[in-house]
């Protein structure tokens, strides 16, 4: 059978609509039946018989029909998808070709976006690693930290005693397991040489609470956690590998820790570090439930499934109150009704306890980074819309060739997404570098930094951010492309009006950039000013030139008869070292966070009720301490070598205590004691008040006791050595090593750096916000420059005509500058309003600066306004130099 000569194409693309598919299948099947019927009839059947024979030969027509329709629908769907993918792909190819044709534009836009996207991914990496991801412990959301609080006694946060640990462990039913821990140090002695390790002393239940067991060996038992029977240790993988070569036979053998033979029972899995990353070993606390003093531990507990933190808080607070009623004497009062006080436990999810302080800084930085990204987007949108103006002819041509408005818009959007992807590629590189700098440099003090890394999640977010950005900055020019299509007539007149609408759009984008820059600039300014004021705070002592080394004595130094001569020799030798101006020993150097904090009582003054007595730091010092630290001695005398256990107990108080009770020298000879001590100390001198812990807070009271009278085997040596301290400190260290090689000397720290560390976070914020602000101002400046240049270029004819008819070139400069000034004023004003709202939010990070500091607001907004107007100067000059003849030649 041959084809009819005239068969023709009826449809180009079949099955576009379900209706068509059904109709065509029906027609096809009907045709077959009709043909068969006709043939049968020709063979002599009656019409009725022919029809029923055709139908029966065909089989189940409904099933065939359904199957054909299903197949065709799938086919149509696949065809549509393929067509879409192909068209997107061809759009992208076209977009990259277009971008390659304008390399300068592409480079500038890519760099701008790389900054915005890179900063965003770097920031997301940090936020994700630190705040969003669960801690690396099984069921980490059920692990909580427990401490206590007794605000009436000035104890906003209060550690727990060993008695408390046993009490919560045995009585709180909300916990699956309860343990106590205390970070500290220990000396590892190998071959006669000592090394200081960061360790944690934990109760036996710690491993159950944290949900991580040793990878080798075992954890220690409750029996090994009893006082006097606790010479066992679990090592970190890092210590095991680096100091013991990962030897399996180390487990079960004995090492020397703090001069005591200690049996290694286990090694934790690689990467485990609690409470700090650098914790190298876990020792049994040696739990003694009868130990009522020493509020130096924290509780760590695992909640029973389904129990809320709040429920556990109420339950443990009730236990605490019960304890307080029975221990009023310990709290320095006759009787106590805890429910009338604010005494309570503080139960915090562990993740919050670890990362809580990082939340605000990270959020502020995230917002700042978000603003940078928005500015970058606005900047590229400006660039693109100026390109769109240039490309109107091309777009008009495509429209004239039959491209629909949506098609043109899609092409333009594809172009901007392609641009965003280029930016993302460069930005990821930037983010990698930034995250590395953050996590490896050691400049940044944020928790969990060791867990932070760029990974698939970050890449996915980056991709999403860049595609969204591409859509955002592409949208405006794309809408413009739509409008341009409508004015397919590309005469000069319509182009003028198109220029005007592009200019309006560009001006709006510049306003956005300027206002966001103002917000960043003011935030950075406030942070800068805070840090400046912080560094200028008079700490009450002079940290410059002072270096400290911590000395932990081996266990054979257990009594004054051995300790005192050692300290005397150390001081004598160190003071004799060339370059050392003065030296002293102390337990509780400022900003080291080791000093005892306790209530104090003055002899002869009524004891305030219910622990409302004043609180003071208690520092134990050797002679020469005040001279070494540069704390002024106001009245009386310094501690001398004679103030030892044989002499009368002495103390110096600082001004903040002295002024509260006495005037001038009246303090001398009076007696004072801390509530945890029963011996009165005679006040022999008054010294200046100092800041401890935190320069942002008021100086806290300090009471100084004689080191020889108080006794301590963990002290710090403070050395004042002006000038180049490196060589001097090496000499000091070798002097100490000669006297007692078993004292571990890991590192010395300058007091300046210790103080600086206390506001490291503010400093980090300062540096980052300042960089962000600089980037923002740069982008905004480039943005306004670009827009004004374009505007001037487009109005060349107008300016030329004006010059030709005798306008003053300087008037043209003023005209352009005025236009720029309007944009600048609008942008800056909006920004000031935005900053007014935004900076309140960072108030807690500031120091001594109001978040709405008027001077800062005025100065910085004027500065940015000036930069904006300044960016218009070059374009304005160009306007004044317009050539009238060239203007007439155009078009």
């Amino acid at each position, binding site marked *: *059978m*041959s*084809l*009819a000569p*005239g*068969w*023709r*194409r*009826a*449809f180009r693309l*079949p099955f576009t609509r379900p209706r068509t598919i059904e109709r*065509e*299948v029906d*027609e*096809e*099947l009907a*045709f*077959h039946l*009709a*043909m*068969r019927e*006709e043939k049968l009839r020709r063979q002599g059947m009656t019409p009725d018989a022919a029809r029923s024979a055709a139908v029966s*030969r*065909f*089989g*189940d*027509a409904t*099933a*065939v029909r359904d*199957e*054909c329709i299903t*197949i*065709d629908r*799938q*086919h149509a769907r*696949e065809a549509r998808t393929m067509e879409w993918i192909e068209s997107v792909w061809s759009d992208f190819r076209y977009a990259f070709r277009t971008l390659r044709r304008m390399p300068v534009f592409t480079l500038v836009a890519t760099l701008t976006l790389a900054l915005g996207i890179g900063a965003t991914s770097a920031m997301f990496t940090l936020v994700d690693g630190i705040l969003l991801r669960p801690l690396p412990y099984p069921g980490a959301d059920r692990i909580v930290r427990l401490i206590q609080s007794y605000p009436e006694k000035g104890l906003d946060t209060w550690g727990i005693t060993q008695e408390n640990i046993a009490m919560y462990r045995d009585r709180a039913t909300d916990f699956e397991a309860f343990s106590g821990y205390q970070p500290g140090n220990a000396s590892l002695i190998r071959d006669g040489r000592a090394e200081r390790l960061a360790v944690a002393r934990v109760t036996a239940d710690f491993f159950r609470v944290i949900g991580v067991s040793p990878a080798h060996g075992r954890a220690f038992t409750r029996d090994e956690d009893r006082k006097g029977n606790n010479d066992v240790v679990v090592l970190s993988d890092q210590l095991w590998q680096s100091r013991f070569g990962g030897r399996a036979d180390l487990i079960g053998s004995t090492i020397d820790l703090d001069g005591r033979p200690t049996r290694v029972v286990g090694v934790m899995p690689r990467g485990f570090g609690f409470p700090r990353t650098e914790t190298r070993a876990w020792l049994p606390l040696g739990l003694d439930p009868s130990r009522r003093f020493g509020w130096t531990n924290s509780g760590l507990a695992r909640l029973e499934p389904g129990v809320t933190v709040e429920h556990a808080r109420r339950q443990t607070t009730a236990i605490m109150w019960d304890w307080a009623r029975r221990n009023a004497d310990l709290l320095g009062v006759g009787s106590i009704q805890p429910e009338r006080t604010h005494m309570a436990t503080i139960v915090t999810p562990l993740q919050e306890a670890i990362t809580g302080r990082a939340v605000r800084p990270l959020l502020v930085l995230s917002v700042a980074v978000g603003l940078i990204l928005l500015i970058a987007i606005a900047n590229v949108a400006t660039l693109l819309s100026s390109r769109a103006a240039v490309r109107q002819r091309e777009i008009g041509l495509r429209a004239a060739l039959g491209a629909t408005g949506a098609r043109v818009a899609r092409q333009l959007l594809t172009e901007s997404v392609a641009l965003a992807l280029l930016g993302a590629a460069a930005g990821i590189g930037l983010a990698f570098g930034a995250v590395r700098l953050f996590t490896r440099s050691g400049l940044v003090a944020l928790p969990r930094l060791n867990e932070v890394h760029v990974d698939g999640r970050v890449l996915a977010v980056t991709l999403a951010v860049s595609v969204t950005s591409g859509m955002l900055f592409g949208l405006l020019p794309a809408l413009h492309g739509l409008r341009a299509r409508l004015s397919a007539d590309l005469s000069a007149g319509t182009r003028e009006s198109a220029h005007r609408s592009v200019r309006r759009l560009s001006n709006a984008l510049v306003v956005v950039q300027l206002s966001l820059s103002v917000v960043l600039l003011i935030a950075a300014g406030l942070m800068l000013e805070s840090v400046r004021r912080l560094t200028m705070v008079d700490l009450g002592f002079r940290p410059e030139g002072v270096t400290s080394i911590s000395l932990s004595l081996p266990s054979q130094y257990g009594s004054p008869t051995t300790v005192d001569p050692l300290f005397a020799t150390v001081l004598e030798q160190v003071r004799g070292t060339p370059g050392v101006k003065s030296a002293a020993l102390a337990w509780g150097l400022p900003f080291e966070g080791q000093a005892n904090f306790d209530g104090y009582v003055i002899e002869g003054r009524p004891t305030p009720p219910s622990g409302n007595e004043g609180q003071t730091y208690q520092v134990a010092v050797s002679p020469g301490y005040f001279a070494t630290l540069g704390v002024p001695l106001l009245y009386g005398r310094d501690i001398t070598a004679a103030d030892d256990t044989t002499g009368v107990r002495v103390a110096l108080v600082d001004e903040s205590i002295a002024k509260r009770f006495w005037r001038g020298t009246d303090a001398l000879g009076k007696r004072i004691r801390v509530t945890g001590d029963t011996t009165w100390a005679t006040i022999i001198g008054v010294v200046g008040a100092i800041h401890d812990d935190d320069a942002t807070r008021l100086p806290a009271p300090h009471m100084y006791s004689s080191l020889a009278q108080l006794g301590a085997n963990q002290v710090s040596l403070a050395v004042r050595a002006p000038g180049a301290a490196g060589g001097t400190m090496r000499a000091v260290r070798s002097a100490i090593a000669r006297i007692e090689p078993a004292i571990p000397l890991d590192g010395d720290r300058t007091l300046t750096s210790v103080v600086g560390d206390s506001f490291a976070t503010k400093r980090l914020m300062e540096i980052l916000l300042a960089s962000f602000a600089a980037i923002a101002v740069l982008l905004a400046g480039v943005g306004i420059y670009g827009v004004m240049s374009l505007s001037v270029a487009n109005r060349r004819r107008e300016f030329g005509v004006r010059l030709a008819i005798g306008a003053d070139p300087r008037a043209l400069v003023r005209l352009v500058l005025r236009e720029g000034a309007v944009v600048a004023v609008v942008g800056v004003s909006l920004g000031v309003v935005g900053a007014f709202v935004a900076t309140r939010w960072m108030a807690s990070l500031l120091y001594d600066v109001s978040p709405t500091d008027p001077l800062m607001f005025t100065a910085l907004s004027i500065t940015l306004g000036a930069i904006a107007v300044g960016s218009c100067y070059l374009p304005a000059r160009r306007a004044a130099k317009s050539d009238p003849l060239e203007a007439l030649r155009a078009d």
Partner: protein
Amino acid sequence: MADTESDLLRSSLDLLVLKALSWGPMHGYTISEWIESATESLLLLEEGTLYPALHRLERRGWVTAEWGVSDNNRKAKFYKLSTAGRARFRSQAPVWHKHANAIAAALQRTSADFA
């Protein structure tokens, strides 16, 4: 491909359709007539089963379809072998021969030995 090979009947029908179309474009009815005469009405017991096969081949891209006008001046859907379809026929026909020969040989064996 596995699904067509697993279904002997369907794969042989597909192959026959491709063979029919190798003579030139045809509509479904002509194809069914050709298969009936070529196989002595043994294979296509129900003519309707031809159509899902045709649509499947079209979806695979082995045949293309266009609407045209038949000999008796009616609108009909014509199928034509595509380049891919021609290649498919060339590669599948020998496979089918091999299988058929193997099965025929096996069925003619007269002993249970396998040497």
